[in-house]
């Protein structure tokens, strides 16, 4: 029997869960938690500069490792600031535990200083949330929060803790260690047999792989499907890395900014094996015209995703890895040379990149050059915009958890703090953040966090001095009436980085030189690299929002009929 207050108990419970790093910002309503955190010998606190940065850093830890990331904010503005990062985690199924301070119970509902209804506001953007009403509830609630965040389809959990509960002194019996996670079951045998028959009979099948492959650790078994069963594989933004891009059967990303050949192959396929995906509109285009000739096998752990947007002929509901492992022995090894021949022909006729787009002074070439320098071990984060789509299109991803990007919510400002989290959780790896001048400005204050913690992060700004994707859409779909998407001043990002105490390399006044780029990427510690990009560099091909994936604008060989 020990005596401790609620805050000490809560921090103790995080230690029990194996947490070693927490990001956050202190404030009036979470000071007892910070006092308890100060005394912790196993948890390192990383002070962010804005709560959204703390939330995205926790995501960077979670996305790069698969283990839950923990972040802390105070009540009121602390809570509202961090909610964007929590919503982002919700849409991309990332396990994050967010602890918020709340005004004392006696003041809840009185419009007290820094009081907002954090519980109410977080309901629609969390997998689950709690408002703790007594310190006695802390052990069970924290254990449950971790269990919910990690089990089934992962997601964020928010725990709101009033200040008086943090200060409430209680007697605590021996704390139980973390309970074993529930193992995730597989679907029925009958469905497995039906799915196997469909795959064996299909002549033009395609694997459609999403973030569920990464979350369930199914990338290895997926590779057997590609290599042994001869299945070509396309990936969503969240699924990139599931199959190495060097594999000739990898088709890259599908949908709005896919290679023409990928959307064309999907148009022709007769069986779509949808694994750990949710048929997002950016991937499918107009859903009624997506893969019009295909039967669908949908494998997912979340029953509410199956049949939600596209009726599946066979639904395998369960842990993706378990389902795929049970299904694999029933499949016949196939080469499917006709189908692969057809896909190879499409790839050759409609290439995503050609030689002149691959010089280091062009977006694709710059991305490939960076990849060549940093190698397979580096972790790549992006912000949101043109640079993100270019990276998704041509970066040679080779493994799960190599690519961290905001998919579902599409949050500008994600890249830098996510890179900070990835670097904290992976001190042995180099982290590269591809960003834009628009995105970086949304969480630029976190340059301070990167410097303060001496993290090995390289930030590469694709600087077109505009909100590039907005600019592109106005050009294409609003009669070229560009409005509010160009900046009137040219910011000296290198000077700003140096102001934070960060190294910087600026290619504004000298052409991009590969040796300078290489030196900047490989020097230890954080560094910002500013690269001007012409405003007219667009992301192609592009499927107009709401159109079918067969309607693609731009890109190479755009005028050639299939």
């Amino acid at each position, binding site marked *: 029997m020990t005596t401790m207050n609620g805050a000490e108990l809560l921090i103790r419970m995080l230690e029990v869960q194996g947490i070693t790093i927490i990001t956050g910002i202190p404030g009036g309503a979470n000071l007892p938690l910070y006092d308890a955190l100060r005394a912790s010998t196993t948890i390192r606190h990383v002070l962010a500069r804005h709560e959204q940065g703390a939330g995205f850093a926790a995501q960077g830890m979670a996305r790069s490792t698969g283990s839950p990331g923990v972040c802390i904010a105070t009540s009121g503005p602390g809570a509202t600031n961090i909610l964007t990062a929590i919503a982002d985690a919700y849409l991309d199924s990332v396990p994050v535990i967010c602890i918020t301070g709340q005004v004392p119970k006696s003041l809840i509902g009185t419009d007290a200083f820094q009081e907002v209804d954090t519980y*109410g506001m977080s*309901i*629609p953007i969390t997998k689950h949330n709690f408002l703790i009403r007594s310190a006695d509830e802390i052990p069970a609630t924290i254990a449950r929060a971790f269990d*919910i965040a990690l089990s089934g389809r992962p997601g964020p959990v928010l725990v709101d803790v009033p200040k008086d509960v943090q200060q409430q002194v209680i007697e605590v019996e021996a704390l139980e260690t973390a309970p074993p996670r529930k193992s995730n079951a597989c679907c029925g045998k009958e469905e497995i047999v039906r799915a196997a028959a469909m795959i064996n009979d299909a002549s033009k099948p395609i694997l459609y792989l999403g973030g569920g492959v990464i979350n369930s650790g199914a990338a290895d078994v997926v590779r057997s499907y590609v290599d042994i069963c001869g299945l070509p594989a396309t990936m969503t933004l969240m699924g990139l890395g599931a199959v190495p891009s060097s594999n000739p059967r990898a088709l890259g990303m599908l949908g709005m900014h896919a290679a023409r050949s990928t959307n064309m192959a999907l148009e022709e396929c007769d069986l779509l094996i949808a694994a750990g995906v949710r048929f997002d509109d950016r991937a499918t285009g107009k859903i009624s015209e997506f893969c019009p000739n295909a039967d669908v096998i949908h494998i997912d752990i979340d*029953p*509410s995703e199956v*049949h*939600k947007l596209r009726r599946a002929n066979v639904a395998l509901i369960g842990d993706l890895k378990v389902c795929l492992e049970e299904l694999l022995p029933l499949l016949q090894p196939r080469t499917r040379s006709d189908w692969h021949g057809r896909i190879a022909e499409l790839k050759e006729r409609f290439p995503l990149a050609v030689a002149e787009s691959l010089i280091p002074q062009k977006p694709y070439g710059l991305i490939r050059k960076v990849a060549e320098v940093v190698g397979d071990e580096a972790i790549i984060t992006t912000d949101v915009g043109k640079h993100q789509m270019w990276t998704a299109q041509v970066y040679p991803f080779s493994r799960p958890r190599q690519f961290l990007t905001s998919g579902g919510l599409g949050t500008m400002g994600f890249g830098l703090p996510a890179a900070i989290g990835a670097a904290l959780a992976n001190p042995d790896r180099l982290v590269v953040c591809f960003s834009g001048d628009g995105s970086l400005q949304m969480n630029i204050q976190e340059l301070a966090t990167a410097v303060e913690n001496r993290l090995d992060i390289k930030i590469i700004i694709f600087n077109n001095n505009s909100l590039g994707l907005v600019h592109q859409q106005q050009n294409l779909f609003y009669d070229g009436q560009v409005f509010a998407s160009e900046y009137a001043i040219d910011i000296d990002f290198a000077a700003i980085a140096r102001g934070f105490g960060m190294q910087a390399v600026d290619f504004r006044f000298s052409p991009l030189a590969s040796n300078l780029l290489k030196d900047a990427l490989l020097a230890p510690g954080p560094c910002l690299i500013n690269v001007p990009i012409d405003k007219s560099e667009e992301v192609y091909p592009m499927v107009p929002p709401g159109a079918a994936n067969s309607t693609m604008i731009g890109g190479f060989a755009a005028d050639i009929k299939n």
Partner: protein
Amino acid sequence: MDNAREGILIELTVSNHPGVMSHICGLFSRRAYNLEKILCFPRPGGQESKMWLLVEEEDRLDQVLKQIDKLEDVQTIDYRRNSRGFFLQLEEMVERL
């Protein structure tokens, strides 16, 4: 009351705490599901509540049920069709007000 329409009655057992109603009603509003009537009673002991929802979602019923079932506070879920009568006495009472 429109007698031609057939209501679907969803019966839930939920954890009894102050946030449960927000979770259930919030789900219906943000996914644009039609929720016509709602009745909630705590069960003896106070740990659980029973909740009855009358919905008009024949086409999307399967999806509505799956989404409700995902809520952590929902312990059991059941439904039956042609259940407008369930609320009849309450409706008569409301009409007399």
